[in-house]
Structures are given as C-alpha cells and as structure tokens.
C-alpha cells in the first residue's frame, strides 16, 4: 500500500484553520457580532479551500495514504500524532468543508450569543476533520469525542422544540456508543502483540484471530452505528434534528452521521475484515430494516424536521447496506451515498431552517403555498426532496443505484425490499412537498420575504455540488475506488 509522507503538513494546516478560527472568535468581544461572522466565514472558507486542494492534489494513480504526518507523542504507549488521507477520507473532508462553510453562511442572521455559537461550531468541526484524517486509534477516539461534546450545548442553548430532552437523549446515546468503542479499541490494542495505537501498524502487523475480530467488530459496529443511526439505535437522531438549530442540524445530519459510518469503515472494517465478513448478514438485515422502516415512519410524521430525520435514517440504511455487501461496488456506492446524503440533508435542513426562521412553525399542516410566498426557498426544498427520492442527474441517484446493484447480487431479498422502498420514499417526499410548497398560500405568512441573494449563496453552493456530482459521478467514484480496491485486495 502506498504511503506517502507530506512535504508540507497540509492536514495539520487544515486543523489549525479551525483552531486559529476558534481562537480568533474567542478574542473578539461578544458584542461585535459582525466581525465574528466574517472571521467564521473566512476560516471555514479556508478549510473548504484546503479540502478542495487536497482532493485535487491527491495522486489517484498511486492511491493509498498520502499527505501523511507522523509525530510520536507518547512513545511508551505507542500513541502518535499520525494523520493521512486516502480515497475514503478525502470525499469526507470535502463534504465537511462544504457543509461547514455553508452552515456558517446559513447562520448569518443569528442574533443570540453569536460568539459562543460559532466557537462551538468550530470546535465541533475541528473534531470532525481530525476524526476523518487520524490514523491513530487513540486520536480517532479523542476526535470522535471532541466532535460530540459541543453538540449538547449547541442543541440545549440554541435549539427549539423540547431542546433539553433532545440534547440529553442525543448525548446519552452517543456516550453509550463511545462506551462501546473504547473497550473495543483497547481490546484490539491489547491483543495486537505490540504496544501501538497506530492503525497502519495494526493493519500490517499480525492478524487478529477470527474470534477476536468478531467480538471487536461487533462492538465497533454498534458503537459507531449508533452515530450512523443504524436501526434500531436511530431514535435519537430525529429527536436531535428537531431540537437542533439549523446549522447544527446541517452539520449533524450532513457530517456527524457520516463519522459513524466512517468509523465502522476505518476502524471496524480496516482492522477486522474477518469480523466484517462474519457480521455482514446482520448488517444487511438491520440496514434494510432501517430503509423500509424509515420511509414508513416518515410517512406519518407531522413535523417537517422529523420527516427529514427519518429520511436520513432511511438513507443511512443504504450506506449500511452498501458496506454489508463486502464487495467493491457496495463499498464504493456506500461512500458515494455518504457524500451525497451529506450534501442533500444539509440542503434540506438549510431550506427548512429558513422556512422556520420566517414562519416559526415546522408543523406541516400549518404550512402551504410556499411556492408562491417564497419561490426560491421552495425551489431549494423541492430540489432537496428530488435528490432524496433519487432522481437521476442529482448525486444520490448514483449511490443508490450502485448499492442496489451490488446488493441484489449478494442479498437478493434485501435488494428487492430496498428497491421497493423507493416507491414509498417517493410518496413520502412528494407528500411533504405538496403540503408545504404547493396549494394556496397561507394568509398569515403571505408577506414574508423570500430568500435574499446573500442568504441564497450557501444553498446555491449545495445545489451546484449535488448537480455537479450527479452529472459527473466519476469525479467521486474514481477517488473512492482507489481506496476500495486496496481494502478488498488486502
């Protein structure tokens, strides 16, 4: 496997952008909200620029881990500051950059405790970036926790609708997840025969016995799976989404849920391929349950954000299904779907957030005629819904297609069920679109302003990304593929 050291520590720079941004925000007095927002936008824009650079500069011929940085930290415990990216991590970094930047722009109109809000967001995203690039189990775990803990405050302070309950529930669930992950990591390290937390060394060192792999994989799968909203550990996610403020929902659904799936992939599958094979049927079953279950429960929701929350459960089921096939195509499709879903839900939540900010309601029955009142906002919402249905030429279509094909090959029954859920999925998305965007305008909202040009910027970025990767899926698939073949060949 290729393993290329970085000449310049780009990855650390990326992290430093978050760190410096955080510092800068903390230094600015809390009353000066405008400079805070500008600083946030600049630094989040910088992270986006760096992740685009990384994506473009990665050598696809070579594959493997590139831009690697390695500094020993606690040699006696084998813990090192070790970063590197491959074809799995890069799309995730890009996703994080895009969602981060757009989320910051979406919150441009925030008034309440601006300083604290952006500071926490920066901390959260730093954890996410770190998690995606870390190659050391200890750091993976630390970053994982760093990205979780600001969530509680973000939801509890800036949220709405039963925010304390949502925040508490989310935190407890995720805490339970990390309570499973830590023992698994420790267990693996303890049985590795050498004292190291290093992912690469563990992979290349002696293999764990099948029994060890099965145990560790199961723990990791459930632990990370809670974050990826794997059925039946998904109930925290809709509740959390509903309670969270817009930008947090965007980052949460767009990126945090991907951390879960990425964790399964990076730690679980990389270290315990045997366990992966062993538990694959279980994964497929749970994934299909999630897909079918998500669309049906989504059908009967009355709150806009609950609907999107359950659609996320369903879409993340597709990711799980792809991973469970243990094939090149399945993994490719799963990672693609992670990316596509991230962008799509970010767009979803940002549209809903806009509507909520103006109308102060998320109850579907109270809304109507948005297409007339705020045509731009409605257009963004409809595009997101169409992407959710999996309309071709929008990004998520490709992820779904590839996963389904891989799945029918491996698990025919599961594949058929998942494809059949498509029709129900269409029904459930279009029902929401119809109830909110179509119909005669609701009178009390009739004079609300449409999305202004500045507020449209983040949404336009998201839409362009969806369309770009919908028209040219190869841009992403080629990248993912470099990592997948090495994973399955090794």
């Amino acid at each position: 496997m290729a393993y290329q050291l970085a000449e310049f520590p780009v990855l650390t720079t990326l992290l430093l952008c978050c760190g410096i941004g955080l510092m800068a925000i903390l230094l600015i007095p809390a009353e000066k909200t405008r400079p805070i927002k500008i600083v946030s936008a600049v630094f989040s824009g910088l992270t986006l620029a760096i992740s685009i650079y990384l994506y473009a500069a990665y050598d696809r011929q070579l594959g493997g881990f590139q831009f690697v940085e390695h500094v020993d930290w606690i040699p006696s415990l084998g813990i090192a500051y070790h970063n590197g990216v491959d074809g799995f991590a890069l799309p995730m970094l890009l996703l994080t950059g895009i969602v981060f930047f757009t989320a910051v722009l979406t919150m441009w109109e925030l008034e309440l405790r601006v300083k604290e809000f952006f500071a926490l967001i920066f901390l959260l995203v730093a954890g996410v970036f770190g998690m995606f690039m870390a190659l050391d189990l200890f750091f993976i775990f630390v970053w994982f926790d760093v990205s979780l803990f600001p969530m509680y405050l973000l939801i509890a302070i800036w949220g709405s609708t039963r925010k304390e309950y949502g925040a508490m529930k989310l935190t407890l669930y995720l805490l339970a997840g990390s309570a499973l992950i830590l023992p698994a990591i420790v267990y693996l390290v303890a049985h590795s025969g050498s004292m190291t937390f290093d992912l690469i060394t563990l992979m290349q060192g002696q293999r764990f016995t099948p029994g060890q792999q099965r145990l560790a994989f199961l723990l990791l799968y459930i632990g990370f799976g809670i974050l990826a909203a794997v059925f039946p550990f998904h109930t925290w996610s809709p509740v959390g989404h509903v309670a969270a403020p817009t930008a947090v929902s965007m980052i949460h659904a767009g990126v945090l849920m991907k951390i879960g799936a990425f964790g399964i992939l990076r730690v679980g599958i990389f270290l315990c391929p045997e366990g992966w094979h062993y538990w694959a049927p279980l994964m497929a079953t749970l994934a299909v349950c999630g897909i079918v279950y998500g669309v049906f429960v989504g059908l009967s929701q009355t709150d806009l954000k609950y609907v999107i929350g359950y659609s996320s459960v369903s879409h993340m089921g597709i990711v799980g299904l792809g991973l469970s096939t243990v094939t090149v195509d399945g993994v490719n499709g799963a990672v693609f779907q992670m990316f596509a879903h991230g962008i799509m839900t970010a767009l979803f939540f940002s549209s809903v957030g806009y509507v909520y900010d103006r109308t102060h309601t998320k109850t579907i029955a109270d809304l109507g005629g948005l297409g007339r009142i705020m045509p731009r906002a409605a257009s963004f919402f409809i595009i997101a819904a169409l992407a959710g249905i999996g309309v071709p030429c929008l990004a998520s279509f490709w992820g779904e297609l590839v996963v389904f094909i891989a799945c029918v090959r491996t698990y025919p029954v599961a594949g058929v069920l998942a494809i059949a859920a498509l029709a129900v999925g269409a029904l459930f998305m279009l029902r929401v679109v119809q109830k909110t965007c179509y119909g005669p305008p609701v009178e009390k909202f009739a004079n609300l302003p449409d999305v202004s040009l500045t507020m449209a910027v983040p949404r336009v970025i998201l839409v362009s990304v969806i369309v770009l990767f919908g028209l040219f899926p190869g841009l992403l698939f080629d990248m993912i593929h470099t990592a997948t073949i090495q994973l399955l060949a090794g």
Partner: protein
Amino acid sequence: MLPLIAFGVIMVATRSRHQLSAGIAIGAAGGSLLAAIFLLAWHWHMDQSLVFQTVWMASGRMAVPIGILLDPLSLLMFTVVATISFLVQIYSLGYMAGDPGFGRYYGCLSLFAWAMLSLTLSSSLVQLYIFWELVGLASYLLIGFWFEKFSASEAGKKAFVMTRTGDVAFLLGLVLLWLQLGTLDIPVLTDPAAVGARLSPGMITLGGLLIFGGIIGKSAQFPLLTWLPDAMEGPTPVSALLHSATMVAAGVYLFARLFGFFSLSPTTMGVCLAIGTISMLMASTMAMVARDIKQVWAFSTISQLGFMLMGLGGGSLFAGVFHLTTHAGFKALLFLCAGVLIHHFGTNDMFSIGRRGGRRLKTVMVCLIVGAGALSGLPPLSGFFSKELILGSLLDTGHPIAFLAGLIGAFLTTYYSFRLIFIILFPRKDEAEPAADHPAANAGEFGERAMLGVLGVLASVTVVLGFVEAPLHRFLFQTLATHAPEAGFHEWLPMLAGGLALIAICQAWFEFGRKKAPQIGWVERFPALADLFAQRWYLDRFYRLFLDRFIYGTVSRLFTANDRKVIDGALDTLGLSTIGLGRIMQRLHAAMIQYRLMAMFAAVVGLVIFIGWGG
C-alpha cells in the same frame, strides 16, 4: 442537448422575463427538430445502426456507458418527439399567454423535451432508465404546474408515485439482466443469439416481465392506469405533449426498442397482449361516460396505447410503431383542439362547450373532426392505416380473441369520439347555462394565430401520414432483422372495420346528433354500468383505500407507534433505569460537562490500568 441548455438558462436566469424564455425554449426545440430532420435525411438509407459510446461512470465491475444509438427506430421516434414538442411549444405561446409562471413553464417544457429526446437515443438500458426517470420528473413538474390548485398537485404526485411503482419493477428487471448478462447495451440485448446463449428462458421471461412492469406504469396500462386521467390537471398543451409523443409513448417505445428481447419469451408477449387488451377495453368504456372533453381523450390515449401494445404483443413490430407515430400526430391534434375550445369557453365540460357555441369555431371543428376520424380509423386518415395493420397482424398471428376485442375496441372508440363531436356540434338548447368554471382567457391575435397554425399543420400531417406507410416500413426494416411475419392484407378487413365504424357513428348520431336526440348514451340507461365506468371500475377507490387503510393507517402507524413506544421507550427506560440516572440526570442538565469529563477520566484510568495489565 440544446433543450437542456435552454432549461438551465431559463430556470436560473430568465425565469421572470417571459418572452425571452419562450424564445430560447422554442429556439432550442427548433434546433432539435432541424437536427432530427437532418439526421433522418442523412441516414435514410442507412444499412447498419450506429453506436457512439463512452463511459459515464465506472465502479469496479460496473460501468455505466453513455452513448447514442442511431438506427431507424430511434431516428423515427426522435423526429416525432422533436416535431411534436416544437409544435406544442409554439402553440403554448397562445395558450399560456399571461400566465405568471410562463417562464417556468417553458423551462419545464425544455427539460421534458430534452429528457425524451435523449431517451430515444439512449444506447444502453441504464441510460434509458435515467432519462425515463427524468421524463417522469418533468411530467411531475408540468402536471402539477398550477400548484396552487390542490387537485393539480395531487395529480402530479399521483403520476409520479404510480409510475415510480412501475419503475421499481423496471429497475429490478434491469439489475437482474445486468447481473446475468454483464451489459445492458441495447444492441446486445436485442440480439437473440447473444441473449439466448447467456440466459435461461425463465430468466428471460422474468426479466421481460419486470421491465414490462415499468412500461405498465409509464404507459398507464392496467392496473396502473388511473394517474393518466388525473394528469389532465396540467395545462392542455402539456397534456398534448404527454399523451402523444413523450411520457406515455416512452413505454411503448421501450417495448419496441427491446422488441427483440421481449419476443424471445412467449409468456411475456402473452402478458403484454392481455394487458393491452384489458386496458384498451376498460379505458374505452370509461371514455363513453366522461363529460370532460380532456378526460375523453385521456381515456382514449390509454386505450390506444393498449392497442399499440396489442399490436406489439401480437408480434408485429411495425404495426405497433406505426400506430405510435400516427397516434402521436392525431392525439396531439385532438388535445390542442380541445385546448382551443377550453381556452375559448373557459370550461372543460363538453355539453357546456356545445351550448356556448363550440360549432362557431369552424377551423377548430374541422380539425377536431379530422382528428376524431383518424382516431376512429376512418379512411383515408392516418389512423385507418395503422389500425388495420394491427388488426390484420392480430388475425395473422392467431389471436382470435384479441382480434375480436380489437374490433369491439374500435367500435367503442368511434362511438365515443363521435359522441363528443355531436354533443359539441348539436347542443341541446333547453338546459340552463351554468356559470363558467374559470373566465375565458384572451390570447391576443398573435397567440390565436399561433394556435390555429399549429392545428392546421397537425391536421394536414394526420391526413398525409397514412400514405407513407410503405416507405416507412422499408426504412424501419433496413437494419432491424424482422422477427415477426408481417401482416398480410385482408380485403375484407377494411370493409369490416369501416362498417363497424359507420354503425358506431350512426348510433352516436342517433343518441346525440339528431334533432331532439335525448343526448343520453345507451350506457347511461344502465345505471350500474354507467356508475362502474364513471368510477373508473373502482380502481381509484381501491388505491385510495389501500393507501389510507394499509399504508398510512396500518403499516405507517404501527411502525411509528413501535418507534415511539417500543424502541424508543425501551431504550429510554433501559438506559435510565439500569444506570439509575433517572432523577440525577435531570438535575445534571447544566452539569453535563462535568459528568462527561468524569466519564472520560474514568475511561482513561480504566484504559491505563488495562494496558498496564496487558503489557
């Protein structure tokens, strides 16, 4: 590709500037039409089909190619689609004048045209599926165009979901074939030798049936036919486009495209024949009692599509394709005529149109009669030739029942078309005039002229098209190997069909046309039967009930209850009670960080101890 660019430009930039948007869209459609005619002329004597292909997306063993397949079938369809969409766009200048969503309308029309044009040229089944979905998307947007009306948005949703249901089967069939064959290139799929060598007969049947499921949804065949009448909620030009050359025709086109594949499995062909027959008869009966002028044409579309599928299922490729072509012409004509009437009188009810003097619009009435005549298969109009061909081929290939059904269908078709015409031409004066549904719009002189001009063109096409049967036949079969015996000519067949049509006209005249006619059809004398037909054989009710009771009422509710109570409840209780944090947690809201740090600290201590032991 031109219309796609037009779509992008209009949606992003010029949505608010109406004239400019229309200009761009029509320009793009005109460009496509020119390209189509050029290609058609260029390849008139082509001896083999041309394929240009490149890889769109590759992932492991899968590769999605994108390409263009030029052969007579795709060229013919391409030309038909380009022509109809061009004409419809011009027509819309008048029809949609003054609508606040004018720009959006042209944007969607362009998307529609692009998707359908690309569909016809697709070189592989995956690509076809992609555009198939896009066609569905565009029709969703257009049917629900007047989205403030509940019925319109409902109809759009219904159309999308129902066709999507069919597409589930299509996608499954596609995946199945992909896994079995390793490729979905249309030339390979239609090559009997290649398919036969790699697939078992059972597989072929299964794949064929699944793909046929998609066709049922798209072409609104039984049992997924109820979305089409509802789709009348869209603007009338859209209905014309939808019914003649694009959306529903896509299904029949797919069948024709894969004719070589379908014909390998007798079961599939049989099912196709049966479904076609059932839909045709069912829809004709529905049309007999409809009052809404557009509804009548909608039912007639279903029945004519069924007729095409009968022709194809009966084993004659040319008969089906030829009827598809002629039907595209005259159905567009009929809808656009109806559009003028509706536009002019502000109502969809044909009785009301008649009373307000529909007969005074001379040009429109002539066109309407020409169209209805073609629909009924009267000589020398285009429908006559294609209908005879289908009936003849059914007889030849030994499907007497289907042949009989075809005759009955033809009879019913003539009956309801002329019922409509007589109702408009000879209204009963003694009924009170209801108020107009919506105020009659005024399109302005230019708009009127555009609309009438298009009608004229389509009417003349309808008259002429029948006579190009022979050259078209030659053109189509230059490269396609014929799988089916071609229909023989039966001296007595035109006589029989013509006679039947005459009887039907007479009956319609007797009931609706003559002076003091009761204007009550024979069907309406049997209330039960009329009710059955008017309720669309209760299919709609059934779906509604199914959705309400089963999907929303049972599955969805149970799952939700399960989610709230069982899963969530259990995990909540489990979490809180076992750890014994129930009450403490509430007090710890604000102290959450400490708790968290404590947990992390404990974890780290545990880690160190554990490693200390391990190492």
